[in-house]
């Protein structure tokens, strides 16, 4: 039995064999993840068995900003900061061979912890998840994240609620 850990993606990780069943997400890991990190667009973190290099899953994180179509002066004063920074989860994928083993949950936990960390170090109000299909949406929903309005495939959770979950 070996422990699954999360590490920052480096050249040393084996990306070649990764297959989550979705072409776009496979290609992101293989062709764009490291480029995005170089350009400071996002950072990709991978889950691996401790001491191994084969990628079992990955999550891509970046800082996002929330802006509002309409913002009154009254509302503006109420806001601690504007635009409002959030931790954005762009991609989250697990290799088909280990799906259902908790790798995705581990990566989501990791992302949520990064949001808490960011709130303490640089300022971050919430975590933002993008579900690109109904199955992914349900998967996030079942883990305690919610859309702001019905029909939206973007889900959120406040950092304060995440902190309460850690302390529980």
């Amino acid at each position, binding site marked *: 039995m070996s422990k*699954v850990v999360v590490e920052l993606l480096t050249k040393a990780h084996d990306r070649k064999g990764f297959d989550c069943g979705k072409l776009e997400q496979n290609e992101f890991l293989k062709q764009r993840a490291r480029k995005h990190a170089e350009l400071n*667009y996002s950072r990709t973190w991978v889950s691996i068995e401790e001491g191994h290099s084969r990628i079992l899953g990955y999550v891509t994180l970046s800082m996002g900003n929330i802006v509002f179509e309409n913002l009154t002066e009254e509302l503006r004063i109420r806001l601690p900061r504007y635009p409002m920074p959030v931790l954005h989860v762009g991609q989250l994928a697990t290799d088909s061979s280990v799906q259902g083993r908790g790798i995705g949950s581990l990566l989501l936990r990791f992302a949520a912890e990064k949001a808490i960390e960011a709130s303490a170090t640089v300022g971050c109000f919430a975590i933002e998840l993008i579900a690109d299909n109904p199955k992914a949406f349900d998967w996030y929903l079942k883990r305690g994240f919610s859309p*702001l309005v019905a029909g939206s495939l973007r889900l959120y959770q406040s950092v304060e609620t995440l902190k*309460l979950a850690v302390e529980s």
Partner: protein
Amino acid sequence: MNEERKMASTRSMETARVEFRMPADLKSEVEEAAALLGATFTSFATEILVARARQVKLEYGLTVMNDRERDAFLEMLEKPAKPSDSLVKLMSTQVTL
């Protein structure tokens, strides 16, 4: 001419060749539009490409919320919900294989 367009058109000391294929009917359509503005295909395409590229870079990582989303978002921040059991469980996930 706005500042961005001025920059795009005055920093062209050194040029690079751009070559790509597109459906012939779309090319004709673009040529017509360029002609309407009295622009060449090249200057028209350059202006549009640069403007769009800048917009993509500017908007990257930006989420725009309508009023309903805004109100729900601020409500979530101002009155943080008690975490659900599933969220509590998620935050203690460990995996061994």
